């Protein structure tokens, strides 16, 4: 039976990829219980919650944070942090829209350009952090501001892409029970689970956060791995930005403020340890869904957004308090 419930436990915990302390399983079960309680509460208090329309809305809304959180998880696993994801989302959104709308480039080309913008941000962050041993917090704080500035340099005004293909493909196209964007996110979660567990780079990244020096002395290229983690984070944020622009039908240069906090929150709720040494893809998915669920519910009950923020803050603190090591 242990095997039977293992996957459940892992949805909210950090046991498979990097592992949490044994003997603290009750924490994972408690999280799972709280999660289902929340669902139950939602269903009993609101008639609209379990409608197809609301669920598909909920899923579409968590795509952005889901993708960013995956990238953030990889960075956190190396023991770092990436504060610059918000403006990267905006940059990718506005670049993809601009390329389509102003330069009249074909959509695939525009997407590739937008993604490479995100990758470049990652290369820069990763280079500064791994080559010069700067603190990730400081480096990405600097790029957080700088990239936001670059976004406005590119376009002070919002861009509304008229290309119908752009809007339909990621915005409204339906694949099976999901929209395409939701499917992309789900595939990304599967890919990341695979990446972190079954590739040399993934195992290297997980180990680096646990003990960077031990990994270096095992003959692994630590710099390269750290670099890769930030590039992945940049790519994820850029992809999130492209999907967001497509869903909203407009790219605002101001979009993405505070996104880094939601992503960090999702990872932490899912059991990731800032500074490295813990965190899982499934846990992060749990964190993303939990945060999305809270937003969705409070919206259904017409609770104003600042209460949502207070509520989220409390959840994050509860999550880290219960996972605290003695």
């Amino acid at each position: 039976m242990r095997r039977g419930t293992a996957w459940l436990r892992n949805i909210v915990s950090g046991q498979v990829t990097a592992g949490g302390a044994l003997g603290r399983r009750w924490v994972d079960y408690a999280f799972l219980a709280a999660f289902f309680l929340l669902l139950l509460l939602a269903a009993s208090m609101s008639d609209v919650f379990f409608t197809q329309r609301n669920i598909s809305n909920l899923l579409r809304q968590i795509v952005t944070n889901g993708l960013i959180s995956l990238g953030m998880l990889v960075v956190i696993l190396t023991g770092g942090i990436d504060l610059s994801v918000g403006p990267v989302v905006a940059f990718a959104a506005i670049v993809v829209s601009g390329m389509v709308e102003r330069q009249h480039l074909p959509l695939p080309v525009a997407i590739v350009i937008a993604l490479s913008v995100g990758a470049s941000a990652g290369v820069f962050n990763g280079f500064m952090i791994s080559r010069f041993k700067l603190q990730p917090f400081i480096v990405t704080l600097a790029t957080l501001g700088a990239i936001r500035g670059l976004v406005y340099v590119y376009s002070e005004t919002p861009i509304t892409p008229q290309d119908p293909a752009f809007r339909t493909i990621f915005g409204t196209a339906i694949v099976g029970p999901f929209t395409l964007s939701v499917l992309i996110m789900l595939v990304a979660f599967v890919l990341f689970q695979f990446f972190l567990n079954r590739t040399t780079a993934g195992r290297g990244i997980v180990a680096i956060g646990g003990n960077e020096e031990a990994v270096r002395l095992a003959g692994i290229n630590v710099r390269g791995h750290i670099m890769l983690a930030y590039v992945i984070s940049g790519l994820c944020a850029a992809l999130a930005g492209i999907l967001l622009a497509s869903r909203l039908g407009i790219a605002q240069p101001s979009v993405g403020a505070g996104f880094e906090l939601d992503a960090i929150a999702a990872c932490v709720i899912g059991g990731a340890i800032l500074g490295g040494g813990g965190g899982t893809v499934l846990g992060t998915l749990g964190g993303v869904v939990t945060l999305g669920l809270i937003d969705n519910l409070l919206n259904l009950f017409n609770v104003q957004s600042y209460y949502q923020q207070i509520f989220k803050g409390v959840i994050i603190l509860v999550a880290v308090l219960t996972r605290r090591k003695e």
Partner: protein
Amino acid sequence: MAETDFLLMRGIRKSFDGTQALKGVDFSARRGEVHAIVGENGAGKSTLMKILAGALQRDAGEILLDGKPAVIRSPFSAHRLGIRAVYQEFSLVRHLSITENILIGQMPTTKWRWLVDWKAAHKLAEQKLAEIGFSGLDVRTLVASLSVSHQQMVEIAKAAVTQPRIWILDEPSAVLSQDELKRLFDLIRRLKEASALILYISHRLDEVFKVADRITVLKDGELIGTVRPEDTNENQLIKMMVGRTLGEFYPARANKPGAELLAVKALGRDGSFTNVSFVLRRGEILGLFGLVGSGRTQVARCIFGADHATRGEIRLNGELIRPRSPRDAVHAGIALLTEDRKRDGLVMSCSIRDNASLAILPQVSRWGFLNMRERDSRVTAEVRDLSVHPAQIGRLVRQLSGGNQQKVVLAKWLLARAQVLMLDEPTRGVDVATKVEIYRIISDLAQKGAGILIISSELPEILGMSDRAVVMREGRVGGEFQIAQASEESLLACAAGVVQ
């Protein structure tokens, strides 16, 4: 009154990870004496002193001060009892000035209680330094910019401010120049006159004879005896420190050293060692002995590419190599098992599987994708060979005992099939049974043709395992011995620079 025991430690026991560091030590000392504590590395002298200073908690035993039981739960409670320790590792705040470090927690204030009176503070700090005979330093200097020996002085001054009744000086002379050493001895004399008790730990026996009133010898966690310097001599003391026979501990010697494998010639690294040369043959175990700080670990780190040598050359199978990173070294077939597995040997938050496969990830993958079955079967086989317990490769290494953790580190390098295996303190913090197993594994490897370099502070280990021994002293090679002609006394004397 001076003859009664001011400090009494009775039946002190302490074990780490199942290794007994102190096996019921009874130790006593008086006011107004300098009491030296000597012994080999791992004899338990630091552990005993750390228990007195509150940095470690004893498993059993009691401590009496002036005949009254003393409760020492933390360094802080030790301070309140007037016990101060000055360790080799400093406890200074590097980015603050000397003044702030000396007066930490008791900075003088102006008549407004919340304002620091800097003028008075600097004056007070200068005065404190002068009191202990260490004047001549600008108290406004940041500690980070001081030389190590000056930092040591500040450390001592910081302790002196609290006027302790018991001083613990752990290798205080290791970083001091001759002139500074004289000043330290002057200070010790004055502290003694003020009827403080000074516990003096040192490897340098000549110093011990100069400064101590009594000398206590520890060995393998037991107190061997307490002697007066006028009743003994250095050679006798060394015999007390090492006097033990090699039992069935070590595997029978059957190594057949073959062709030259690793040759180090005039290797040097600025600030840590100079002109180090030695040769390691296939199928040979070479011991590298030296006291802490003699540069032996740095030599290994340079061969491994973790640090960079600034002079000299390294040849592997006759070919010049210049490892720029551990990655280069691992590719060349050189492995280094580091002395502190928790710090840089293991990823504690990861599993046995992850740790053991860390150095062979490229070998068990194609295009960056891991062949999980291949990895797991290799790891499982190695873990079974080394009888790691529990033999579940998904287990986190954090949950293993010290001995099993060490086997996992060993497994990592055995899987990598290194031809040169450098082992830095391979049995530190390992229980006796595992020690014997590790010795057998090392011996097997040598017989299969690997070249093995054992770095150790444990003389029996060097003598029991190696075919030859190189002794380092203060960053240089002090001597090279065929094991048949070496003894613990001769190696220790060479390492400590004592002429027999």
